[in-house]
């Protein structure tokens, strides 16, 4: 990702800042100009809770360039409690214990290092929901 691109999307990656559609009242992530549900102009920013459950997952044995060091790692589709689904890595978890329906919460982690000269990209991953803090 370009430096400008990483800067533009920082609020999404660091804090799951999305929107609520003023017309259909559904949560949207990431923010868009047009609501994907009702096609009306999308609404004010809203920070998602970061909690949800695993809708699906995969354990990656082959990694794309820039992610080789992290292998093997798990990527999931996480269905957030407010409705939107996100694609993200799972972390702080035994890869064999991941299952569909597992409750998870967002944490901030290093996503990718782009080499000596490049930036270090941080963003959301999800870990099993801690018992405390509810």
């Amino acid at each position: 990702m370009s430096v400008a691109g990483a800067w533009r999307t920082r609020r999404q990656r660091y804090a799951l800042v999305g929107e609520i559609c003023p017309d259909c009242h559904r949560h949207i992530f990431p923010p868009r100009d047009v609501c994907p549900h009702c096609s009306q102009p999308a609404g004010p920013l809203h920070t998602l809770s970061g909690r949800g459950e695993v809708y699906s997952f995969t354990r990656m044995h082959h990694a794309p360039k820039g992610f080789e060091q992290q292998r093997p790692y798990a990527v999931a589709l996480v269905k957030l409690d407010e409705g939107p689904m996100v694609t993200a890595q799972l972390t702080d978890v035994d890869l064999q214990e991941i299952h569909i329906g597992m409750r998870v919460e967002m944490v901030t982690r290093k996503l990718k290092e782009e080499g000596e000269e490049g930036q270090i990209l941080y963003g959301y991953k999800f870990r099993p929901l801690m018992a405390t803090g509810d």
Partner: protein
Amino acid sequence: MRGVSIVGIGQIPVGEHWDQSIRHLAYGAVSAAMQDANIDRADALYVGNMLSGILLGQEHLATLIADFCGLRGIEAAKVEAACASGAAALRMGYLAVASGLHDVVLVAGVEKMTDTPSGSTTAALATAADAEYESAHGVTFVGLNALIMQRYMYEYDVPMEAFAGFSINAHRNGAHNPYAMFQRPIDLETYRNAPMVAEPINMMDSSPICDGAAAVVLVPTDRAREFVTGHHRGPVRILASASATDMLAIHDRRDPLFLEAAHLSSQKAYLQAGVGPEEIDFFELHDAFTIMSALSLEATGFARRGEGWRMATEEEIGIRGRLPITTMGGLKSRGHPVGATGVYQVVEAVLQLTGQAGENQVPDARIGMTQNIGGSGATIITHILAT
């Protein structure tokens, strides 16, 4: 609108062509198609390609190919729609002839994927997904399909080996296709022993990284007979050409287990052609991964939701089955040079419809359907062809 027919086809063997550059690959297919149609000139050349810029540092590709093929002065442009680039280029050619603007159009699909290390090629393929919200998280293209397959198996209680039949069928057919990358059959044991790529997708669920090129020549149907030479049984008409999209990212789809764009484009195609799924004699579907075969069959009206995997048997999808699919090996065995795949599918459909499919000839093949998928299902282009 005029009717559009295919009067020439060309293809090169799919494989790892380290001795040939992308221009040579394209020339092989374009020259064969021109020879087949007995033409030395065309009004335009549309090239389907996904990765020439990112992998080869070569854009302006169609002009380079026109130049290299001796077509100086011709209109030329590259068409890109990820893995559906080939069918997108075909549709561009179809529109150009149907509209009456052009009479003779060349359509080529070409991809060169083996000049770069596999990690770079894998990362390049992932550009079909949302760069900021999918690929940035380290998910590959295989990974995205694995997310769909895992959920499918969970929701419909499907065992993993249920998908093996799609690969076995593809390889059984590819074994008799001289242009296929893997010309050998596999069995259930091969599938069971295949290493994992992104669970639950193993190597035998996946199509390979490879090089290839295919081309066709399009003309108005009312002029098709002028171009058809002795070795053809006849020209092949394009009865329908339809394209549709879905949300780019899987996580934004209404239902990640339903290929809405396949449903929309196939319904448009059925309507345009005036046929239904029951009249399709064979179906060249986009088996980049076995899960895509199941989902394609469901979304295009051949299987109920959650039951596409039940068709993975020889009785259903074999050459003499109820609905033969991937009749020349499909993406799995013929290979998946991404931007070329959509044109290979059509070349193979023409072979079937003109009785040139050899050992793999589908008996009495009169109407064939091809379907090319871009990304994890976000662009899906359907063509229906007939003699």
